[in-house]
């Protein structure tokens, strides 16, 4: 795309521009001005600011006739200073656009450490939120590992050591003699045979039922009927009961993105 500085035209919308540093922090105070023209991702606007300001990337907020402000991150392609104003030809992109994009605003699961992360520091988002570019919103609440804040897997596991490696044999209750024992004791050649009364060819439902059996932990040997919902951290391997998990708000930011096509349509 070739950006050219358009000739002076009449203003079509008001613009507020926030210069930003390469690391994402906002610089100084916003500059106000007017949008002269736009073409695709190219914006020509005039800012009232002293000549000392350098060609930093910006976030511009364009307020249309309906009073709504849409924001876009831009990099300055050309600029020209006049006595008390600056004519800027900017193209959508740069770090501002990165932060305004969904990937920049919403925390994502980092694949190696299984932690929710946003690409920039909280201070940057706070400064953007302070001037009204971003709006803080709670996306979800998540339970995280109390050790490293990574995402665990949750499953029913041993109440003692939180291991998910469990043995759960089936117990069989033979109605006729009231014997209750593991299924393996009943298994005979091609059918089931009660080890107590020696009755053969047992039929499920008619002759026997399955009874609840204890879980046996293969790691610590703990026996219990009840399992507990526990977490197993995918990052640090910590096992912990669910009540020890850290509950954390998953916070993202919302931004009103500048829709150039909608703005043009509105102007027409």
């Amino acid at each position: 795309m070739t950006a050219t500085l358009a000739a002076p035209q009449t203003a079509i919308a008001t613009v507020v521009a926030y210069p930003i540093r390469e690391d994402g922090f906002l610089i100084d105070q916003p500059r106000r001005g007017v949008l002269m023209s736009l073409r695709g991702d190219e914006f020509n606007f005039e800012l009232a600011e002293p000549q000392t300001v350098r060609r930093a990337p910006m976030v511009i907020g364009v307020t249309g006739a309906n009073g709504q402000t849409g924001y876009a991150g831009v990099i300055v392609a050309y600029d020209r200073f006049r006595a008390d104003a600056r004519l800027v030809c900017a193209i959508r992109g740069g770090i501002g656009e990165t932060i305004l994009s969904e990937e920049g605003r919403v925390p994502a699961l980092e694949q190696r450490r299984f932690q929710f992360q946003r690409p920039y520091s909280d201070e940057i988002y706070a400064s953007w939120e302070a001037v009204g570019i971003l709006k803080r919103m709670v996306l979800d609440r998540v339970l995280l590992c109390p050790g490293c804040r990574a995402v665990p897997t949750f499953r029913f596991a041993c109440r003692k050591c939180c291991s998910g490696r469990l043995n759960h044999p089936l117990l069989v209750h033979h109605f006729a003699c009231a014997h209750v024992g593991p299924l393996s004791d009943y298994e005979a050649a091609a059918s089931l045979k009660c080890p107590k009364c020696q009755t053969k060819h047992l039929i499920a439902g008619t002759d026997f039922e399955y009874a609840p059996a204890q879980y046996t932990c293969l790691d610590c040997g703990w026996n219990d009927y009840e399992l507990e919902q526990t977490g197993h951290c995918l990052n640090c391997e910590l096992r912990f009961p669910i009540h020890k998990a850290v509950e954390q708000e998953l916070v993202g930011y919302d931004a009103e993105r500048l829709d150039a096509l909608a703005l043009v349509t509105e102007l027409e």
Partner: protein
Amino acid sequence: MHWLSSLSWNEIAFIIAGMLVLDGPRYCLTTTLVVLYDWACDCYRVVIGRPEPAEFTHCPSVCVMIVGRNEGDSLPATLQSVIGIYPRLEIVICDDGSNDNMSTFAREWARQHSEISTTVVQRPWRGGKSSALNLAYQHSQAEIIVAVDGDSHLEPDAIWEIVQPFADAGIGVVSAMVRVRNAFTNLCTSCQAFEYLQSILVGRRVSAGLGILPLASGALAAYRRDLLERVGGWDVGPGEDLDICMKIRKLGFQIAFAPYSTCQTEAPTKWWALLKQRHRWDGDSSVRHFIRKHGDYTNPFWKTFTWSNLLVFWDAVIFHLLCGIATVVWLFAECLQPSNVPYLFMLLTIYVAAVLCEIPSFIGILYYSRTRKTDGVLGLILPLMPLYRFLMLIVRTQANVREILYRDSFNQRHVPPHVRAATWHW
């Protein structure tokens, strides 16, 4: 005396038969002998200055099993009575398909009392008490399994007392004392309370002393775990507590009685409920278990035969089955063949004799009891006991006859229908 001397031998035989079938002389004689023997032993110990033996010297690991259905209301007090009464204790609670909050409460209790190893087993549907017991005891590695009903409350030394007889390797099961918690609610419960004292505190002491105790009440009984495994656990009820004791006796082990291992249980307060309960209890014991299922007790060529088991068999058959039937026959005979003796006068004589026969067992109660004051007050009911016994005897006879004719015990609602349908009808 003049009246007695005027009777013919035939008439005296009728009177003696009446006394015999009322079971009085048996208790009277044996109780007198055993109480006198114990009294003599105590006197001898005092005379020679031998100190009383140390109370608790045996401390095996114990698992208290509480098996029940819809016992959510009574379970809290039962569990409360178990806390801190024995050092090597674990608890298994088995909920046999309850519709109430039994297992929820049990789990909550287990969480609150994490110092006691507690396992809660919840069956999603009802499978019967026997299989629930079989399921429960497999979840413990304790040497001694103590079965407790969900509505039984243990007294503080109950577990210590019940495990002491296991110091003798020949003891397989220990029966405990069951007392009526609501003894003074009404006449019905008072009669039951006195009957429990007679038949358990004194009667079982006598039977255990003679080596012919056949039963440990399901309300509180202790079993050696290895023996439970050898006999395959409990069979389908009703009467599963008698059945397993009989199976363990066949292995050559004795049943001991721990008179001061006490649990309190709730007795029926209505006469009709009591009669139904006794009908249920009595129907299966003599006919189903002694005669039909464990008839090999009488076979001297059978490998499990012992003379004490033979005595147990005849004790049950004569006094629990034949005496009842004889009573009914005797009553009819008396009605149909009026003798020279005025009928009411003869009945009154029998009744007075029966009351007199109760006195030795009452003395036995006072001698052995540790709560003499309360038990002494219950003795006021003694003159009514022959009447009560007669009522119970009629119920027992009816239950036995129905069992002989219809195998009634296999239709009891205490066993789930699908289990009833599948089990063997002895």
